[in-house]
């Protein structure tokens, strides 16, 4: 990590390149599938839906069936996976700043399990209603996420000063407890078993434009609050007391960040189930480019998370067609070794000091 972060101009260039890469991978992923649609045709179908574009001219010679496949089935799925990937990566960035701990992520801290626990209660007991377009499953997931986060935070604080170990242990304990709780709920309601189990693995197979819209709104709201708090999050990495002595309203910052992160994680889990390790790996890789400043890191993490998740989801549906591998399994297979590498590197660093 001796390498210096990029200068501002190169950082803008890197962000721009990632954005282009994202656009390319969206088109590529949308073109990939059982029915092969040429890349150019895919791009035309997507672009034709943008405002101020002469639709009729672009769509000349494009089969109607292709348009339906791309627009109704594949594009929402690709966009949803992109949004969830971006959201999870951003949540990881904020949690790592908030807990002053490079190993924090929604899954390690038990927040994902909390959301899944809430959701499985709603599924298993058939609690199903909708208020202003928000389903009961989502509300339960949100409450589960936020309660878990508060619990972990509280326990870690009692166990002195947010040390790495105490937060990880508290998170792991909460996570196992909640996962066990989900298993018990599943055993009681065997007929709902499959539905809950799918949730635990993570999948975008049930994507829809409604979910894309919902996830997009939540992501927009959370990212705006994260960017607003960028400076405060930087200062908080020096400890609450030092941050406060420089004028940060620590409590306000923490409350806003916790609520926005929980909202984001709950929304992600509610549309796609638990997808692990994205929030851990992506911020780490991007931090090498951006340096530790959160306002530089967040845009990169959003793009990186989206690219990574779209790639994983495309793999998940094209490795063993027509079956699908749960996307959560793919992110874990790539993420877990990286997590081990991080632990190993931390250890090496401690030994050297």
């Amino acid at each position: 990590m001796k390498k210096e972060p990029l200068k501002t101009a190169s950082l803008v260039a890197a962000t721009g390149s990632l954005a282009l890469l994202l656009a390319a991978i969206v088109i590529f992923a949308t073109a990939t599938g059982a029915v092969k649609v040429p890349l150019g045709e895919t791009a035309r179908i997507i672009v034709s839906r943008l405002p101020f574009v002469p639709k009729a001219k672009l769509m000349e010679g494009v089969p109607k069936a292709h348009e339906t496949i791309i627009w109704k089935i594949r594009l929402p799925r690709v966009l949803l996976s992109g949004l969830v990937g971006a959201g999870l990566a951003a949540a990881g960035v904020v949690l790592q700043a908030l807990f002053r701990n490079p190993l924090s992520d929604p899954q390690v801290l038990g927040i994902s399990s909390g959301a899944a626990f809430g959701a499985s209660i709603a599924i298993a007991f058939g609690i199903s209603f909708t208020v202003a377009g928000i389903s009961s499953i989502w509300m339960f997931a949100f409450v589960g996420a936020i309660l878990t986060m508060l619990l972990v935070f509280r326990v870690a604080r009692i166990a002195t000063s947010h040390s790495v170990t105490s937060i990880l242990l508290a998170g792991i304990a909460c996570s196992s407890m909640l996962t066990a709780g989900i298993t018990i709920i599943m055993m009681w309601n065997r007929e709902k078993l499959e539905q809950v189990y799918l949730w635990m693995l993570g999948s975008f197979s049930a994507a829809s434009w409604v979910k894309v819209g919902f996830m997009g709104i939540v992501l927009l709201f959370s990212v705006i609050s994260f960017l607003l708090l960028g400076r405060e999050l930087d200062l908080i990495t020096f400890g609450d007391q030092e941050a406060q002595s420089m004028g940060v309203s620590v409590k306000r910052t923490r409350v806003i960040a916790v609520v926005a992160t929980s909202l984001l994680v709950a929304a992600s889990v509610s549309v796609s189930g638990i997808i692990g390790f994205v929030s851990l790996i992506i911020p780490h890789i991007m931090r090498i480019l951006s340096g530790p400043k959160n306002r530089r890191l967040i845009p990169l993490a959003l793009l990186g998370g989206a690219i990574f998740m779209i790639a994983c989801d495309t793999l998940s549906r094209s490795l063993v067609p027509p079956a699908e591998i749960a996307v959560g399994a793919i992110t874990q297979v790539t993420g877990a070794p990286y997590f081990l590498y991080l632990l190993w590197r931390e250890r090496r660093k401690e030994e050297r000091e």
Partner: protein
Amino acid sequence: MKNIDVKDLSYQPKTAPKPILDQVSYTFSEGHMTALLGPNGSGKTTLLRHFLSQIRVSSDAVRIDGKAVRDYQPKALGQILAWVPQSHSGDSAFAVEDVVQMARYPYKSTWESDNAEDEKIVTEAMERVGIAHLRKRQFQSLSGGEKQRVLIARALCQTTPWILLDEPTSNLDVKHQIQIMKMLREMVDEKKISVIVVMHDFNMVARYCDQAILLKKGNVVAKGAVEDVLKREILRDVYEVDFDILDKDGKKIYFAREDSGNCDTMGE
């Protein structure tokens, strides 16, 4: 007049058998370099934490510029008090210049970025403390003494009328101790900044501070001009150690005697 007024300040956490601060009253007046003295556990850091609103009391026992500390918005307080903490775990990946620049926070609105004026203040602060050559280094890669100097530079960069330092020289070698104390004294004399410093080294205190307040078990034992506080009888009473006090060019030199009375029974 931006004095810090402490009036009848008592503080006892729920779990503590005895109060940490007991009816402390003192006015830290502007334009001085005041030493905050006392044995370990006498309440020095706790007193500073009250100023910084890290410990919030319901009363208005601590007033800055006539206004109770708890009534200040965090940013407003950040424009009055800068703080150099006693120690820092220090695993931050930020570069030294970014750490120093963080102290410009209380002057910035959400989207305002740092301008040329801020850059100048950052550079000046680093030069004053002698860490300009470290500016690109990662904070976590520094030695304990270097980290301490970065935090002092950060406090200067906050450009506050008051700077509170909690044992700022504890990790420094003699040369840097003198450099820091001399620099602080210059800040007081030239820039009319007021300094409160927690210290254990009476020789340094006698050389650079002009006011002192001495605490023992949460009580103020002595206060006023340094030479009136650092008296043999007072020190023996508070520290249970006898001192030889010598005169050298008008400054006092303090030398602790090993054979002083209660050294063996300090833990009573």
